[in-house]
């Protein structure tokens, strides 16, 4: 009897322990496989919808782009200035501020220039309505020393992009 127990402990028992461990591992992998298959199918469905609405998504993505897109921003500022009758003398785009608790980063945009008061208001309006979200944080303006009807202005704004 004792020999029987000893032999059972020596041979079939380790095999039984292996089976228990394998069954747990198998269940875990089957669950993982089902989840991965479902996720892959879900991504495929979303991709189909994404492709169908690519043009709208592209436009929507411009509000808060995934990268800094500095070139596009400079180009947009120039177009806005031209539309508003504003003469830009300097654009500065400084290093981004690290936002620790948000999903976005902020870039500081500075614009110096010269225009009439109504030109400045139109410029600000167009900045506020720009497809890429820009929040003006500071405006300084004063009469130009040589041309009294014009204002020298300096604008600070924040632009956003994803982390």
């Amino acid at each position, binding site marked *: 009897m004792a020999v*029987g127990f000893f*032999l*059972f402990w020596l*041979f*079939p028992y380790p*095999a*039984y322990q*292996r*089976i228990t461990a*394998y*069954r747990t*591992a*198998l269940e875990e*992998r*089957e669950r*993982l*496989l089902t989840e*991965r*298959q479902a996720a*892959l199918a879900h*991504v*495929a469905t*979303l*991709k189909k919808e*994404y492709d169908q609405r690519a043009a709208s*998504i592209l436009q*929507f*993505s411009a*509000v*808060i782009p*995934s990268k800094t897109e500095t070139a596009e921003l400079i180009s947009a500022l120039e177009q806005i200035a031209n539309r508003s009758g504003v003469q830009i003398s300097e654009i500065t785009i400084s290093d981004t501020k690290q936002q620790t608790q*948000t*999903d*976005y980063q902020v870039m500081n945009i500075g614009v110096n220039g010269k225009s009439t008061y109504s030109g400045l*208001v139109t410029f*600000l*309006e167009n900045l*506020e309505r720009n497809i890429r*979200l820009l*929040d*003006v*944080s*500071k*405006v*300084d*303006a*004063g*009469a130009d020393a040589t041309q009294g009807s014009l204002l020298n202005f300096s604008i600070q704004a924040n632009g*956003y992009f*994803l982390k």
Partner: protein
Amino acid sequence: MIGVLFVGLNSYANSLETQIQSIDGQLITLNRQRDRKTEENLIALSKQAQLTGQLLDQHIKLTNVLRVLERTLQSQVRFKNFSMSTPTQEISFQATANNYSSVARQIASFLAAEGISDVQINNLKTLNSGDAEFTMKIKLQTELLQSKSVPTTP
């Protein structure tokens, strides 16, 4: 009997091991089939959708402030320079008026305007021309800076 049991259990364990290896293979294949570019695009879009609403709600509209200033500005007051800051929600400016009464009317007009919470005047003095020169600081309400429309009441 122990021998038969051992062989049976061992064979079952081996079969389970084979099944695990097969699923591992399928998982590796599925991982290779992942369209990572699409996944990145979808994650970015999801973040953008979330942030756009949030940031649009806090979107600053400084032109609202300018419209209120234009409406409440007295005809005898002329700005020399101004500075607007949204983090401090303040406008400070230097201006001239034809007399002190005009300055007083200007203060009253600003205080009556919707969206302006406080007006502070500094450094009021008479110039050689007889005009009054002053610097003023106006405290703005958040609602005015973020409002989609300009308040209609002066």
